[in-house]
Every structure is written in C-alpha cells, then in structure tokens.
C-alpha cells in the first residue's frame, strides 16, 4: 500500500456506554473507551478482537445506527449523525428483505433514490453477476443457502455505491468450507471494486487472509491494542510461513489480555 492517501473514516476519542435499567439499580455497561482510528481510502481494515468485545457496536456507531456517548466520527470529513446511504453494511446474519427477490434486494438502494429502472437494473445485474448469483435474480432469500444469502447482502451493499462498507462477521454463521470460499470471493470482489471496507471478525485466519491492516482490539471497554500492516502478497496462502508466524503473533497478542467474556451487552 502507498502508506498515505485520503482518510475516509476517522474516529476521535470514541466512547460508548450503554445504560440499562435493571430491576433495582441502573446498570452501566462501558463498551468502548477512547477509541481512535483512521481508515484510508480503499483500505481493507479488519477489526479483530476477542469474543464479544463491542466490535458490532463500533460498526453501528460508525454507521450512525447508534449514537456515541462522547467522541466524534467523521466519514470523508463529514460528521456522522444518523444512518446514510454513504455507508453500507453487510450483516452478521443476513438482513435481506425476505419479501423481495434477489434483484429487488440488490437494487433497493438505487431504487429508493429514484434511479431510473433501466439504470438500476443494469447496476444490480452487474453486482449480481459479480457475486456469482446469475440466474437467481427472481429467487426469494428463503430459497437460498446461507452463503448465497450473504452474497446478496454483499451485492446489495456495493450496488448502493457507498464511501465505506462495514462487514460485521459476515461469514460467522457459515460452515468452514463455505467460509473459505466466501473469503476468496470477497477478495476477488474487493480487488475488482476498490472500496474502503471495515471488516469485523474474531477469526485470525480470516483477518490475515483479507486485511491490508489488522487492528487488534482489547476486551471491554474496547480500545485499540495493536496494529499490524499485512504485506503478504495476494492471493495469500493459509499455510505459508509468513502467514503462520503472523497468525501466531496475533493470537498471542490477543491471548495476553484474554479474559473470559461477559455476557449481555451491546453486541446484538
């Protein structure tokens, strides 16, 4: 990577505490503390952290679906206040609209912005082809396998042409075989369609395979622990020496602070 370039996403002293009313006392749950992060244009950034360390919350904050307790998030110099079409999301479990066909799902963003039919059809078809779902345009999500549903989710996010795409453990629910396949697939898509991607995972291999840069997060309250630039040439080999030693290093980095996770906080 060229090392410098436009900053797409900037998080400054980001803090998030959830307040929940419990039976007797108010409960406070500090999920994120003073998180600072800069993501460059067209960078593939992986947020990697133990179990449930508020990774989803970070994405939701950046997406504008959740409001920070303090601190600021900027995307392309504009302060984030509420969800917008400039930021796309690929969800953990697919958040496809079940009453819409694959075509209608993928074209949802352009359609809502009043793009002409010929135009959105063309655009959606391009991304449907790109994720390898040609022939399934008229299928409903319920008829597709988990991996195919995630492909639709990815196509839907890309088709809306956002500045940054968040991916929240998109392959976490897939079986190992499909997962490897999807990792290869997403790499292909990303090399074809350059975008800023922020990808959350708790799988080291996935992180190293995909990332330009890995940001290792601490336990809750979450903040940045360490960063790794991944400069192994692509496509990467899971069994190469470089890969394995990096894997060892990152695993240890997480394990040092590895305590048992607590249940019941902001990660939905």
């Amino acid at each position, binding site marked *: 990577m060229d090392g410098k370039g436009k900053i797409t996403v900037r998080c400054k002293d980001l803090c998030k505490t959830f307040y929940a009313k419990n039976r007797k006392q108010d409960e406070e749950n500090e999920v994120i503390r003073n998180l600072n992060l800069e993501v460059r244009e067209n960078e593939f950034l992986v947020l990697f952290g133990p179990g449930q360390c508020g990774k989803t919350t970070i994405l939701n904050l950046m997406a504008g*679906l959740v409001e920070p307790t303090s601190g600021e998030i900027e995307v392309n110099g504009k302060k984030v206040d509420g969800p917008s079409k400039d930021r796309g*999301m690929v969800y953990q479990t697919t958040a496809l609209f079940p009453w819409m066909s694959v075509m209608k799902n993928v074209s949802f963003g352009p359609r809502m912005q009043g793009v002409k039919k010929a135009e959105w059809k063309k655009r959606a078809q391009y991304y449907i082809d790109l994720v390898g779902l040609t022939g399934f345009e008229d299928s409903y999500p319920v008829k597709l396998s988990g991996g195919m549903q995630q492909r639709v989710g990815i196509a839907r996010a890309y088709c809306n042409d956002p500045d940054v795409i968040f991916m929240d453990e998109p392959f976490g629910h897939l079986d190992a075989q499909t997962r490897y396949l999807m990792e290869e697939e997403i790499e292909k898509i990303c090399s074809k369609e350059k975008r800023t991607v922020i990808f959350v995972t708790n799988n080291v291999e996935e992180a190293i395979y995909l990332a330009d840069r890995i940001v290792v997060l601490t336990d809750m309250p979450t903040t940045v622990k360490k960063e790794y630039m991944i400069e192994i040439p692509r496509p990467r080999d899971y069994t190469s020496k470089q890969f394995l030693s990096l894997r060892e290093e990152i695993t240890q980095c997480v394990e040092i602070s590895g305590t048992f996770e607590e249940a019941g906080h902001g990660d939905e």
Partner: protein
Amino acid sequence: MKTKEKSLALGVGVLAVLSVFLVWYFAASYTKVSLFFPTPQRVFQRFVESLTVPIGKYTLLMHVLYSLKRVFIGFGLSSITGIILGVAMGYSKTVNAIVRPIFNIIRPIPGLAWIPLAILWFGIGETTKYFIIFMGGFANIVLNSFDGTNKVNPTLVGAAELLGANKFQIFTNIILPSAIPYIFAGLQVSLSTSWMAVLAAEMISSYEGAGWIINMGMNTGDTVLILVGMISIAIIGFALANIMRVLERRLCSWTERGK
C-alpha cells in the same frame, strides 16, 4: 413415499366420511331417531330441489348469495378500518396510547353481544347486519395488524436506512410487507367469525339468507330444511377459508409457510 402417505390419508378420510353417512343412514332409516332426523337421501334430494324451487321468496342459491353479500360488505368494512387502525397503532406510539385503552374495553365483547343494541340503534334492516358482522371481525384484524407492524425487525429498518430509504419508503417497503402475514392471519380468523355473525344476524331478523333458512326450518319443524341450510353454510364456509388460503399463498410466497 410422500405420495403414498398422502393417498393413504385420503383413503382413510374417505372411509371415515362414508362411515358417518352409513351410521346416519341406518340410524335415520331403522331407529326412532328418524322422527327428528331425516335420511341423507332426503336431505340431498331437498338440497338439489331447492336450487330451483324457492324456499320462501328465493331459491337456495339466492339465499346464500344474500348472506355472502352481507359478509362481504361487513367484512370488507372491518378489514379496511381494522387494518388502518391496527397499522397506525403499531407504527405510532401516540396513536396506540390514545386508542389502546378504548379498544381494550370493547375487545372482550363478542360481536354477537352487539345484536340487541344494533337492533335498537339501526332497526332490523341491513345496517344492523353489517354492524354485527363488522363488530365480529374488527378486533381480530386490529390486533393482528398491530402485532405485525409492531414486530417489524429493527435490523431490517436499519438496513433500509443505510441504503438511503426515507421514512415513507421504509413504511411502504419494509414495515407494511413484513406485517402482511400477520394481517392475513387476522383476516382469516375474522372471515370465519364474520360468516358466523351473519348467520346469527339472519336467524334473529331477516327474510332471506342461509341463517333465515335454518330458522325457518326450526319454526316449521322441518328438519330437512334445517340440514339443507347447515350443509350450504358448511360448503360456503369451507370455500371462503380456502379462497383466503390461496390469496395468502399468492401474497406471501416469500415466507417459509408460503411455498
């Protein structure tokens, strides 16, 4: 395997129905029950006959059509108002806060309990019948529409927002479609309660309709006529339920249940 099971089930079903008819036939032909219980042939004969020979003012088909017309008007009104009110309650907390208490008072009152008041208010004309049918189905439609709208998956709403949909687009593209299966469940139940309500209304005050036929049979001690009325009611009720099911399958083909 599947088709074998299906045909077996069908065979058993046919046998069961046949044996009911056989018991009916023998009981009505050779025991004392025959005094109040005509044989199946007589009922069938009368049924066919009534298609051409009028009972009272109309033929059987016309009576049934009268009942159906009442159901469609009453049920149509309760569907439209019920869906609008239920969806509004599910979408807006304010509307729910205002309407809910009033609704909760009216809800436990069965539609049929409105008959006396309805007669005093509207006389014994058609309005009364529409009103009773309306009250019979209304609560269920409201509750189901509310549920469906209220239970919309917030992740889907967030996803739509991130794709640039505005409030109105989210309402029409996300909230309404996700409520449709619930609304349909409500409509299905309400249609059968509406069908019950029309019969009750006709039995109490009318000069035509399937309910009137049964009542007429009772007043004249004509058990054959009562059974003819009951059978036509069963046929229509069965048909209505199936029409709804087909409609549901059409409109909700995207759900697990749909196909």
